[in-house]
């Protein structure tokens, strides 16, 4: 108080203040350094992972040319000579990811819209944490549920020879990505300024029209981020897919075919692969392609968000 009003006696008050400021500055610097260090560490780890993927994975192309590796339909690591073609895994991964996204996104966004705009406050406050708990169920449990409950259902529903197929895996994955999509989209919808909605209602729009034409478009960047997180989970998920997708090596034609994704191919093969061997290199190359795929998804998402932002700032 004194310092603010009376600047006539600087020597009396300045010393302790300066000491405090110095201490604060020192603390600030330590924390800044700490953050810088953490940031650098993250970058170093990322570069390290990329380096290892390249070092362990690239040598396979001396054994199998890249086009054969990418477009070959046969994967026989134990044959003599071994054959490595990943197109079946690639198609399976895409198929399962696309189906799970198509199932999860409408349900997830609708659920988020309900929680944010329609449900009474108390209901929303109860349901949201419950949905978030769903995200914490270990994937092996989801695999078990898929194996015990969903696969017999899918089998009888579509009159299949087995319920262990891509569709079962995709449905389980959509269930697993729902919590992320709902939670993040709900946050985005919640952040839409109240004035937007009030303006919409003032123009005579119904609740549905407000949600569809105002809330969702203005929360779109957040919703897109939610969808990308969901897609990321679907591409990278391993355990559930390993348990319920069936693990056939043929290129799938229909979603109801048994299939092996890239992640489950790595998981089921890596134990068998001696470090530095051809199968080891081939599996690392699969990992490399998986990495490139997820990177592409992220870059596309970034571009979409950027365009969205520009559109809104106009």
């Amino acid at each position, binding site marked *: 108080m004194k310092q603010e009003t009376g600047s006539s006696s600087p020597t009396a008050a300045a010393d302790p203040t300066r000491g405090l400021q110095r201490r604060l500055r020192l603390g600030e610097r330590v924390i800044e350094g700490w953050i810088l260090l953490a940031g650098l560490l993250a970058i170093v780890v990322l570069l390290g992972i990329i380096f290892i993927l390249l070092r362990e994975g690239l040598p396979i192309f001396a054994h199998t040319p890249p086009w054969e590796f990418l477009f070959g*339909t*046969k994967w*026989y*690591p*134990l*044959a*003599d000579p071994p054959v490595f073609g990943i197109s*079946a895994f690639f198609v399976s991964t895409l198929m399962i990811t696309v189906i799970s996204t198509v199932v999860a996104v409408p349900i997830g966004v609708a659920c988020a819209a309900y929680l944010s705009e329609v449900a009474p406050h108390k209901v929303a406050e109860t349901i949201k944490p419950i949905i978030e708990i769903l995200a914490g169920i270990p994937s092996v449990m989801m695999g078990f549920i898929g*194996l015990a409950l969903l696969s*017999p259902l899918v089998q009888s529903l579509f009159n299949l*020879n*087995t319920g*262990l197929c891509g569709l079962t895996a995709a449905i389980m994955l959509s269930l697993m990505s729902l919590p992320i999509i709902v939670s993040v989209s709900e946050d985005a919808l919640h952040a839409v300024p109240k004035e937007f909605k009030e303006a919409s209602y003032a123009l005579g729009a119904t609740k549905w029209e407000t949600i569809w034409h105002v809330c969702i478009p203005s929360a779109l960047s957040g919703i897109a981020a939610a969808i990308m997180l969901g897609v990321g989970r679907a591409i990278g998920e391993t355990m559930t897919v*390993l*348990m319920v997708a*069936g*693990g*056939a*090596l*043929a*290129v799938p034609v229909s979603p109801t075919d*048994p299939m*092996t994704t890239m992640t489950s191919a790595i998981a*089921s*093969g890596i*134990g*068998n*692969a*001696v*470090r530095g*061997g051809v199968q080891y290199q081939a599996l690392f190359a699969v990992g490399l392609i998986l990495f490139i795929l997820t990177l592409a998804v992220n870059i596309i998402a970034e571009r979409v968000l950027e365009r969205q932002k520009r559109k809104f700032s106009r």
Partner: protein
Amino acid sequence: MFKSVKKLLLPLALVLVAALVLTGCGSTDKTTTPATGTPALTGSFKIIGSNTITPLSAVWAENFMKVNSKVSIAVSGPGSGVGIAALIDGTTDICQASRAIKASEITQAQEKGVDPYEIQVATDALSVIVNPANPVSELTFAQLSAIYTNQITNWQEVGGNDAPILVLSRDNNSGTFAYFLEDVVQMAGMTTADKTLQYGGKVLLLPSTEEGISQVAGNANAIFYSGLGYLNDTVKAVAIKKTASDAAVLPSVATSLNGTYPISRPLFYYTNGAPTGAIKVYIDYCLSDEGQQEVLVAGFVPLPK
């Protein structure tokens, strides 16, 4: 909320401590009755490998640890291939394998300074199983090979119902996968042998034997292969004949011992060099009459005396 959690923590901790103390007492009590135990035997080692042998190794290890309380053995069964890879990489003490180590793997091991030492610990009659509702009761090697290469896709072609065949296999980590591929699918040792044959693209590759058994139990069109030790009354073993003119033989301890069952295979332990110390005592126990008795109990075929 947090207070109530804190209140719970103390009794919970007490219960845990009590449980630890009690189990500790229990195991020390048992050391007073050593049957084959060496009093001062200590150590800990890992057994990694075949999913087929795992139930047997688990029983052996448990019995051994009861007698030698200062020895701890960890058994895991992700597949023979994993075990052999672990032996070569030096990350396991014993590798359990349901197939013999390959020449290429021995070379790899020697490059890394590992000298694989082979010990046969039991024999297994590899059983081909179908659902009990399936009328097919015998198959030849040629039929099995055609089924597993997806050339035969309907049960009708081998004398069953008009239904598609659901072909199940273990994944390529499995020694059973490799053994069945070589011995049955490629028909090694027969005049019709064809080394280029591989499992068909529509064969389901499953991560464990248990999953295959439960699929066969629940699906009238499924076929799977597994170690004799995994058979139970939810599935039906198929009698096997090497060629159409041979007699069909069901898998059992007796038919495997007298050599009439055509898909009997040795089960191995591999160590780096001849075993020493606690590992040697353990393997001696496995090979003893007492240990071989457990082989029978686990459903496998003991070594000939």
